[in-house]
């Protein structure tokens, strides 16, 4: 098992290098704005632009630039400095990470807490009115664009501009350590919006998975043993049905940790997604590279975790 993990970790590292190389190349090949020009501003003297370019190291051959970057990254964990703000990328990332973590983890808990029970009940009462209603609602929520949903939610429930002034509106995010109450209340609406689509998906997943599981032979055996029905459903059915869901869950969380741009923008939450988006508009390569690497890291870790968790959950899966 440990050898398996080690192998996955090494592959993951290789993947990170590849991703970073790809980002590096992409941003220098695609027609984005020249960061030196952007930094210099309008009407800058070409001499000035050249000087800035030298300063930012953009005039060195690509391979040199890449090598310097890689060296700094893997040896010193130095992700460079933002072209735009002069702040170190690492500090910016760490600064934004708590907000993204809060948003993602809270939403994850919420969507599992809502989606799974709904899916279970739907599976057990197939084709009942409850089932049809919940599956219809889930279809709606899945189709609703996140951004739109966020705006609707704000206009309905935000305490400053909404019809029913229930929760704090956009821009009210405060760090957990700074103001725990405000942190909690300001994330209510974003959590709901982010969780909405996922809860819908997971409800459907759980429903399908459980329906399939409940048709298995071992359910029949459990009933034949005289096990109470609730236990049959939960301990036998759900326990088997949840394995594929948990693996998808790990991946979803991994992806979200790379930044939920839309929700972060609508609710003005200073997270990694928005940092990435702002950096892209400014062609701020170091930040872009940093966020991409971070996102890739989260996904790779999530993948490895998935494999480990799956083997733990399903003893039939053994590492080869």
């Amino acid at each position, binding site marked *: 098992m440990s050898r398996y993990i080690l192998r996955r970790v090494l592959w993951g590292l290789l993947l990170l290098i590849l991703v970073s190389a790809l980002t590096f190349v992409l941003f220098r090949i695609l027609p984005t704005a020249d960061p030196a020009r952007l930094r210099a*501003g309008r*009407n*800058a003297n070409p001499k000035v632009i050249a000087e*800035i370019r030298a300063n930012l190291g953009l005039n060195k051959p690509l391979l040199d630039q890449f090598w310097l970057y890689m060296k700094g990254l893997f040896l010193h964990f130095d992700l460079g400095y933002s072209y735009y703000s002069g*702040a170190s990328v690492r500090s910016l990332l760490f600064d934004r990470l708590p907000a993204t973590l809060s948003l993602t983890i809270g939403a994850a808990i919420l969507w599992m807490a809502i989606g799974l029970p709904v899916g279970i009940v739907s599976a057990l009462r197939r084709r009942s009115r409850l089932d049809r209603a919940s599956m219809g609602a889930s279809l709606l929520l899945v189709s609703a664009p996140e*951004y739109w949903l966020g*705006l609707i939610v704000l206009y309905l429930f935000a305490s*400053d501009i909404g019809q029913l002034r229930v929760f704090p509106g956009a*821009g009210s995010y405060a760090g957990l350590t700074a103001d725990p109450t405000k942190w909690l209340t300001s994330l209510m609406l974003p959590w709901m919006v982010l969780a909405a689509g996922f809860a819908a998906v997971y409800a459907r997943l759980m429903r399908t998975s459980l329906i399939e599981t409940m048709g298995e032979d071992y359910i029949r055996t459990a009933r034949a043993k005289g096990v109470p029905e609730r236990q049959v459903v939960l301990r036998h059915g759900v326990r088997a049905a949840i394995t594929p869901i948990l693996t998808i869950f790990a991946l979803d969380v991994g992806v979200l940790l790379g930044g939920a741009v839309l929700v972060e*923008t609508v609710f003005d939450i200073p997270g990694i997604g928005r940092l990435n988006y702002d950096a892209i508009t400014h062609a701020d390569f170091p930040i872009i590279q940093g966020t991409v690497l971070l996102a890739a890291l989260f996904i790779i870790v999530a993948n490895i975790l998935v494999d480990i968790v799956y083997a733990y959950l399903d003893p039939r899966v053994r590492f080869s």
Partner: protein
Amino acid sequence: MSAQAPNRKPASRATRAGARRRATKGGLAMSSTRRNTKNALLAGAFTILAALGLAACGSGGDAPLGAGSIAAPAGVQTPAGESLTGGTHGGTLTVLNHQDFERLDPGQAYSSVDYEAMYATQRPLYSYKPNTFAQATPDLASGPPQISADRKTVTVHIRSGVHFSPPVNREVTSADVAYAIERGANPNVANPYFSSYYGAVEGASKADGGPIPGIVTPNSHTIVFHLTEPKGQILAAALVLPLSAPVPPEFAKPLDAHKPTEYGNYLVATGPYMFKSNAQGKVLGIGYEPGKSATLVRNPNWSASTDFRPAYLNQIDIQIGGDPDVIGHQVLEGSDMVQNDEVAQPIVQLAYEKFRSQLEISAGAGSNYIAVNNKQGPFANVNVRKALWAAVDRVALNKARGGELVTNVMTHFIYPEIPGFEQAGGLKGPQVDYNEHPEGDMEVAAKYMRQAGYPSGKYTGGKTIQVVGATGSPNSTDAEIVNQTLENLGFKTKFSLVDSSVMYAKFCGVPAEEIDVCPSVGWVADFGDPQAVLDVPFNGEHIEAENNSNYGQVDDPTINRKMAAAELLVGEQARAAAWASIDRELVAQAAAIPMSWAKQPQIEAKDVAGVGDIWNLGAWDYSFTSLK
């Protein structure tokens, strides 16, 4: 999120229609200038002669809104109409901006959002009161600049009693101003306009951050500039830009040694407010969190007696990011808050309908036009250009930008509030047949196409023309409309939309790309002088291989000569007349296709007595705004 005009950068100084005519020279004393016909060399940028006392030029017309007026409709505020005195002291203003600052280093700041913070925390030698850009008010300076007769020497006296904020604390001296300007040449700072305005200073061309021989400080409160060319009035005018705000060398030098400079993360203030900082003066992470927030607090070392600013507010909390629609609602329905960057169109409508007293509209916010390639391709032919001018539906283009509330149909090139506007044709513009019908007139267009040598009235040549516009609404909508018009004229187009910065940097700003039509370009002048509007975009001398701002590669020898001559004129009347004539010439040549004159909206909450800077697109001025 593309701005109407490119990056809404330098402030335009527009005089209000109907403002009193100033008796010329205002704050800056001028010696008589000798016309120097051989002059007018601009090292890559435009020159500014705004400080020669530009007064309001004629009446802008208070026509009712329906007819297309420059004036703001009744009930809406304007910068000129806001009172500079009588505000209540105290309170914290919350500012919601969805755009972040670009540069906070006074040696680098060059956009309107940056200026909002700049002019509240830094004191350049001269600056403007909110409701005028006719005259510069001495800020750090104690009086107007003294320009020698040969215009090669400029002397400025600095007032005493102005102190730096903590942790520097000491009194400001002329050496600090000298260092501030000298660091502009430092590649780690790379000030964008240093070479344009200070390029004539002795030794400036070789400067790299070290002392410049031409900048001399004979005593602690005097600074003298020695120039190699007679451009003193330009330099003097440029002293309103933030570069001349003092920077303490002992604090900044080590920071300026970093590539790029770190001074922007530390910052020392001289204005009434400062960015919140720690004991070492570090601002980054404390008073400014990039992409998140900024906090301005009172500068304890600022003294009201040395400043013309009242500085009512105790603190300004700036929140960065979010969705413009949401921000708009929050501001309009909230309290003690303003939005201080581009307002979303639906919000402007909402404010006009339901919160009219909370809406401010500032005219003279620049122009948007369609650049066409005057050098290569079908548009090198003046008749083809005229045909396109006639064919384009400018009313529809303006509708996409928000309609009459925030735009006027553009009919020539000097925009409202700039001297020369009326002389060049005013709102209606020169009444030539291709300009007469802003909704577009295909018959006139066909006529010009025939004159251009296409008997069918449509283009029949084989060339597929390249059209590059900017993404994001309304640029993309307007670009589509223009593209459709081109197709109606018989052109085959290769149409692409790219990010605005990419459009400028890689396509429309690079002559070698030979782009035929650029429908998403715009211009905002640095100062309220017609030269600042017409020179760089239309002067053949200013075509650059890279970063070109003469997007259409306009290079008419007659126009070039006229510009060279008009540059040296002194006196608002003369300048206005000369440049207005150039404007008419540009119209006659259809050098570019006009689209829209912008009026900038700003919004505030109901309990904020906002005062907007007319010279900065009407942005709320923190030093004059108060809470009711």
